[in-house]
């Protein structure tokens, strides 16, 4: 099972499933991170603790921990 956490910089993936709890899931969905949406990894901090991704036209920062809850697949 691949998650967004495992993605390297500049890779593009498709969301398969959100494993977050209801609150966080709602927030991710309202940011456009939901099933079928395409995510591109833009940047990460040196320790890879925080990553920046692009969904549609929006740039979102999230922690590796949260990225680990987003199941993705290569496209």
């Amino acid at each position, binding site marked *: 099972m691949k998650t967004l956490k495992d993605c390297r910089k500049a890779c593009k993936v498709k969301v398969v499933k959100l494993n977050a709890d209801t609150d966080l899931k709602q927030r991710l969905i*309202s940011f456009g991170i939901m099933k079928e949406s395409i995510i591109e990894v833009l940047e990460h901090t040196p320790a890879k603790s925080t990553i920046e991704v692009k969904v549609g036209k929006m740039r979102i920062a999230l922690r590796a921990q949260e990225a680990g809850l987003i199941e993705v697949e290569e496209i």
Partner: protein
Amino acid sequence: MKDLEGKACPVIANHIKIALVGQPNVGKSMLINSVSNAHLHVGNFSGVTVDKTEVLFDYSDYHFTVVDLPGTYAFTDYTIEERVTHEYLCAASYDLIINVVDSTNLAKNLQLTAELMSMSKNIVIALNMSDEADKEGINIDAEYMSELIGIPCIKVSAVTKEGIEELLEAVVQVKEAETQESKLIFSEPVEEEIAQIMWYLDKHKHKAVNSYRNIAINLLKNNKKTYARLHDEPIWIELQPILIDALKHIELHHDSDDIKEAFAEEFASFNRGIVAEVVTEENAQIEKKTLTEKIDNVLIHPILGIPIFLFFMWSLFQLTFEIGSIPMEWIDAFFGWFGDTVGATIPNDDVRSLIVDGIIAGVGAVVLFVPNIIILFIGIALLESTGYMSRVAFLLDGFFHKFGLHGQSFIPLVTGFGCSIPAYMSARILKNDRDRLLTLFIIGFMSCGARLPVYVLFIGAFFSPEMAGNMLFAIYISGAMLGLVAAKILKLTAFKGEDEPFVMEMPKYRLPSAKLIWHTVLTKTMMYLKKAGTFIAAASMLVWFLSNYPHNLILEEEYGSKIEKSMSEKEQTRFANQLAEALLEQSYLGRIGKFSEPIFAPLGFDWKMSVALQTGLAAKEVVVSTLGVLYALGDNVDEDSNSLINAISKNISFASAVAFIVVIMIYLPCLAASIVFTREAGHVKYFFYLLAFTSVAAYGLAFIAYNIALRFS
């Protein structure tokens, strides 16, 4: 504004109450500002507005009340400020909603719009930032969009003020019209179930204010209020199994056991449809890197990012000193001259002393630092309005996380460099109560603008001008570092618990207009000056009174005869100084100071410094004005020490000054901030925790700093 012809009754003014709703950072406050000439605080990050604000203005024959609500991504109650919006929309009474959306990112913004549409309220959509969309080659067919979703959509730009009148016209028209059923269309399975429930309600001739469709949608969305209302009806018994089947059907269709997720997906596909119909993009060529991405390549670079940020901060404090010190001399000279001139016109000794040594010295000491404050405010305004703030939150999240803080804590903490009060408020963007409380406790470690004068004063007294900027930077950075350490300690002891998820939008970079910066800085500076003219002036008078009374005639006579008998002028001056000093020491304030002196003696403070710290509890500016009054009354009769900086460097040792700065950095924020802190923390007990925590930390660290400084000097 524009004259409206053909109005039926132009005399009677009507009220229209509007709730302004939109996702964070779409320019809601900015839009109100350009509609009404109000000066609400705007910035380029999520969570500038954290509480609702009402703005009143008139347009044609109407009185408008616009309620600016905090931005919300969806109706999720994720954070406190989002809860404010949600509760207001559900419970308060208003005529209609203006939904502000960002034209450059319609798909995302419509997610909230779809939720609003299911509320069956009158809505007008403001397609904001249309100027930016034009530049990016994004074209929205507003008329077609209005037709498709059954809601008037108006292109506006809060920056260029385009479309503002059209928006208000649309508002007036919608207010006069009947509430229309929204044209929100779902996928086939959901529509089937809606039809099923509607058919059932119709069969039983169910009486309700809202339409059957609306009730059906709310039932399927698990809206608690709708459930509560229907639960008491007899039809509930039959409705329940229908609902259970319906929900199962929808969940199966969406392959999810979460109905909220299913509906979010429904909304998203509806929105995709709308966007595909109405939006055309001109340069949809091969993905070109946007300007924001190019800038981000440098500013959030994994290695260079943090050094660049530190360099920006260092430059800010250098500028604060370099540029700030130029007009300071003029202001100092002005108040000196002003005091002398005014003093010369007042015959009565007591009144003259009150005006010159009390009010003018006290207020002057605070006004002296206006240039520094302005530069600091410009720096913070730039940080807030360019979009850089969120980048720093991104860069520092990993680092902050180690200390138990949240990346988004950075935003209230930076605001804290300006003033603690808005900083306490902006901590509402943090979802988790524990994280929020932790951040509230740490905000005080970020030295606010009012403490800047104290630092500038003491640095000016003890360091060369070349070093001053660096020292100021060092003070702020070490304050922040102490804050982080304190956060770690609190996280390990008082606020143990799970980590909060960190998910944050990174806004586009925007070049703030000079006008915007000007307004932001002007508003804050005027507030500072107003405070100097009112609160600080009153406090200075009080300090003057407490330090002049009671009069001691015996002392005065004793020294009076000494002065008369003395031969040389030099000796006379010496006795006059001694008299002033002795009078000051036996004044009310002197007694308070003397009483508390033993407490502060281990830190090397004389009684004047002890008093200044205590008056500083009212407001940090008062520290400077108190010192100003005390040293103006005291022994500065010799001609070369007419400025406060000289008085400080002559009367206070280096080690004591270091300890004093440490206390100022850490101890309890001002009275107003403490009140806001208590309100935001939610309980009085937190105030006492803060009092204990800051006092112990301030005293302990000042003691250590004093002893280290003693070794070196």
